[in-house]
């Protein structure tokens, strides 16, 4: 009955189904992929976020930016990183591919609730911005002794 609504080729339909299944597995409704401040896949810069007991670390894959002109701010657990990536274009050259991102960017990342906004540390190396935020002591797993 609905067959006629989706008139795309069977192959495309299969890809779509795969995408939906992947969304289900990886959770499209996480704060990362479905958050109200999340960006579509492929947005610049790409980010990875990982956590340990002591801190949460955000990696921004931002090659060729001027780290001194990067704005990093944190309010409660909302980390905002904005800046500009200037790509020098050669006016006299013939371009065949221009896949790289140039211009202003901004990413807002919601970190876990237990991060301490007063203890943030950022470094830039080989095109990766690494921002580490400490977690609050009270949020760490503790050993509980039975008396």
């Amino acid at each position, binding site marked *: 009955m609905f067959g006629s609504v989706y008139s795309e080729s069977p192959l495309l339909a299969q890809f779509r189904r795969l995408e939906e299944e992947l969304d289900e597995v990886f959770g499209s409704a*996480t704060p*990362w*992929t479905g958050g109200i401040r999340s960006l579509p*896949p492929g947005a610049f*810069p*790409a*980010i*990875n*976020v*990982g*956590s*340990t*007991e002591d801190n*949460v*670390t955000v*990696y921004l*894959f*931002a*090659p*060729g*930016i001027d780290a001194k002109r990067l704005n990093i701010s944190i309010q409660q657990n909302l980390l905002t990183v904005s800046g500009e990536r200037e*790509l020098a274009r*050669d006016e*006299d*050259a*013939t*371009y*065949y*591919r*221009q*896949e*790289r*991102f140039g211009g202003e960017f901004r990413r807002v990342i919601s970190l*876990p609730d237990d991060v301490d906004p007063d203890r943030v540390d950022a470094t*830039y*190396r*080989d*095109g*990766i911005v*690494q921002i580490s935020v400490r977690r609050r002591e009270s949020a760490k*797993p*503790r*050993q*509980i*002794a*039975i008396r």
Partner: protein
Amino acid sequence: MTNATEVAMQAASAGEDKQSLVNAAPATAIRPLVDIFETADGITLQADMPGVSKDGLNLRVDGANLLVEGTIGIVPEKQMSPLYADIRSTVYRRSFVLGNELETGNIDADLKDGILTVRIPKRPELRPRRIEVRS
């Protein structure tokens, strides 16, 4: 009877999860984004490869093939568990086919802040010449 009197109460996320931040199948490489442009002297390729240092870069010309390969050298702490990952591999790989007019023995490469710049000169005899029209 043992005298184990302590019970570890750990959050589930701090348990056995020892995987690295980007540990997806190593076979799947990231295709780096590139700009490619041509000038009178040659062709320049610029590739975004954040996380790659000089040691992790592998640039190879095999016949007419140019292979660009790099490994991300920034390794997260052992006990880190991933919360989110756009980048799910530690290897970049992409190859290009060069033309006959290019001097593959004279390629110049530079890597800075995660951007690879490769300059491939044209053979001198094949650089474009302006042809004057005689009246």
